[in-house]
């Protein structure tokens, strides 16, 4: 889960990391709480906001309203802006960069710092990677003082203690909240200390059971501010927690494995068809999940054909066939369904489907070819 800036900064502030004084704004009335000059920042879950015009400085109160109106009516990289943070500007500082994340090549957390933080950090990483200093933090060893002293020296930070405290706090938040990434960019080095001017935090959804209260609070806040246009299928999939990715075409797809699901899409594409979505049920799917997943994918009204791609490893084909039959019992069939079925209990499942007059094949190539032809002829 990617946090919005105000949520990320709240987590930092709770641990005692300094952030600029700021308020959340969702309507013109909220401007009363703002002191000027201020920096207005759109709360959208994307990077590069500065360059996208989603961060604007306002000098005086009377200038604020038109800027606010304009920003609240704007869309940044596909996200309609629903809230802004108004923050006290931090003047005359050096901008540093700090990130803590999991290096998946060596499976060890990695601390990255740079003395050239700010909007061009990606450019720095590409052109002068030596200006980003990396230190692995082995979980078997923890953060050692000498490592922080070494980083502080490279960054020319005089107040080593304050820097050490900040790093330790970041590592603590990372551990305690099951983060997979914490990035502070820029981190302002001011005469009065280190201040996190922006923050990006990713939390591990797989660990949400350890932080139920925090996750539900963050999700509720995000839901309230989310006005992204969503199709019926996407909404239904979110509600039912089904992995559904819209792709814009007209051939729907459901698979019982991620790998065969992606393969099926590639084959549909190569056969000249246009996939409408990716959708994977997972190895624990049963008849009920099959039925509920068909309901999600068929909620897309542009579909001409639905391909169900099943290769029973953990899933049982008799149960999958039952789910498909149950769907057809409860609903009028809106589009042709072409099914690939093999593996565990397919000897039971296939006759069930064929008995219903459905197109069902043992091999994927025939299934894909049939579906693409049907989509073309409809």
């Amino acid at each position, binding site marked *: 889960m990617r946090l919005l800036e105000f949520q990320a900064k709240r987590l930092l502030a709770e641990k005692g990391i300094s952030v600029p004084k700021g308020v959340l704004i969702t309507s013109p009335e909220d401007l009363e709480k703002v002191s000027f000059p201020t920096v207005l920042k759109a709360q959208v879950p994307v990077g590069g906001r500065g360059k996208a015009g989603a961060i604007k400085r306002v000098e005086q109160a009377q200038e604020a309203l038109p800027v606010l109106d304009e920003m609240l009516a704007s869309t940044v990289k596909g996200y309609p802006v629903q809230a802004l943070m108004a923050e006290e500007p931090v003047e005359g500082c050096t901008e540093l960069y700090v990130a803590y994340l999991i290096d998946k090549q060596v499976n060890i957390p990695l601390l990255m710092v740079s003395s050239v933080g700010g909007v061009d950090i990606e450019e720095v990483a590409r052109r002068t990677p030596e200006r980003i200093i990396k230190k692995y933090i082995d979980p078997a060893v923890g953060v050692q003082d000498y490592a922080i002293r070494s980083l502080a020296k490279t960054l020319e930070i005089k107040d080593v203690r304050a820097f050490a405290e900040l790093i330790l706090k970041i590592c603590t938040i990372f551990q305690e909240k099951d983060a997979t990434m914490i990035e502070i960019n820029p981190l302002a080095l001011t005469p009065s200390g280190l201040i996190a001017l922006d923050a990006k935090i990713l939390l*591990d959804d797989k660990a949400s059971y350890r932080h139920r209260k925090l996750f539900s609070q963050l999700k509720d806040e995000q839901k309230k501010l989310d006005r992204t246009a969503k199709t019926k299928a996407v909404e239904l999939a979110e509600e039912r927690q089904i*992995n559904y990715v819209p792709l814009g075409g007209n051939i729907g797809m459901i698979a019982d494995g991620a790998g065969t699901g992606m393969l099926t899409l590639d084959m549909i594409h190569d056969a000249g068809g246009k996939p409408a979505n990716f959708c994977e049920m997972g190895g624990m799917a049963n008849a009920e999940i099959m039925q509920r997943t068909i309901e999600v994918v068929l909620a897309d009204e542009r579909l001409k054909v639905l391909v169900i791609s099943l290769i029973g490893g953990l899933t049982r084909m008799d149960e999958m066939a039952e789910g498909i039959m149950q769907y057809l019992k409860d609903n009028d069939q809106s589009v042709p369904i072409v099914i690939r079925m093999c593996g565990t209990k397919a000897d039971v499942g296939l006759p069930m489907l064929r008995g219903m007059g459905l197109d069902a094949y043992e091999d994927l190539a025939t299934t894909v070819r049939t579906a693409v032809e049907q989509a073309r002829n409809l």
Partner: protein
Amino acid sequence: MAILIDENTRVLVQGITGNVGSFQTGIMQDYGTNTVAGVTPGKGGTEIFGIPVYDLVEEAVRERQADAAISFVPAQFAKDAAMEVIGSGIPLLVLTTEGIPDQDVLTILRYAALKGTTVLGPDTPGLISIGKCKLGVHPHTMFMKGPVGIVSKSGSLSYEVGRLLTESGIGQSTVVGIGGGPIWGLSQESVLRMFEEDPETEAIVLLGEVGGRLEHDAAHFISHYMKKPVIALIVGRMAPEGVQMGHAGAIIEGEEGTAASKIAALKKAGAIIARSSLNIPELIKKLEV
């Protein structure tokens, strides 16, 4: 021995009394896997399919000399179970569990590295040494004995390719699923290294997908160290950036995670690229292995 396991491997099943654990244990045993012990805390002293169940892994190791473990323990308890296997000195752990928090996986892998335990997974179907030992959930009727090694992130894709090869009369040596990520214990590269040294394997099928950069590491290994032919299929050419395609690790974050860049790297490394699973049997026949 083939790679990692064979008919002499003495298998311990964690979570043997659970739904999935007991169902899969029955199938593994029918296949001929030498399942010597099960562990479920609190169920010690009982039996399932004639297999003794213990409370603790150390008891199973002491009394039944287990030397490989497969875990069907739910995500919330998976870390403790894995640490117990590693702490007991078992050299191979197959972690089938999906949804283990990343930081738990990091801790498991760090401890495993310190103790010398090889971890396959998490979120893996496991592996099957054809005709010798099944340490996982592969539908074994889709496979037959032969000279082709398969290493795959996805379980389902390895079943699909295994089935096509078997139908074409091409058998397999060992089929290894490394898991759906986003963090992997054993990598594609490590499995390639094992196949390269395995006298029972003559050619390798590498099945990859979008997300992460393991396939780039594999490409590097192929170009520098491999003599045996590698046929590679990368799925997810239709995947948009930044969204999860089923597996937790199948998410494109940056250029290296795309199917196109992985295909290009593998091609440059000398791997033979298959456009889809259907081409793999003919590509192998051309090799005349």
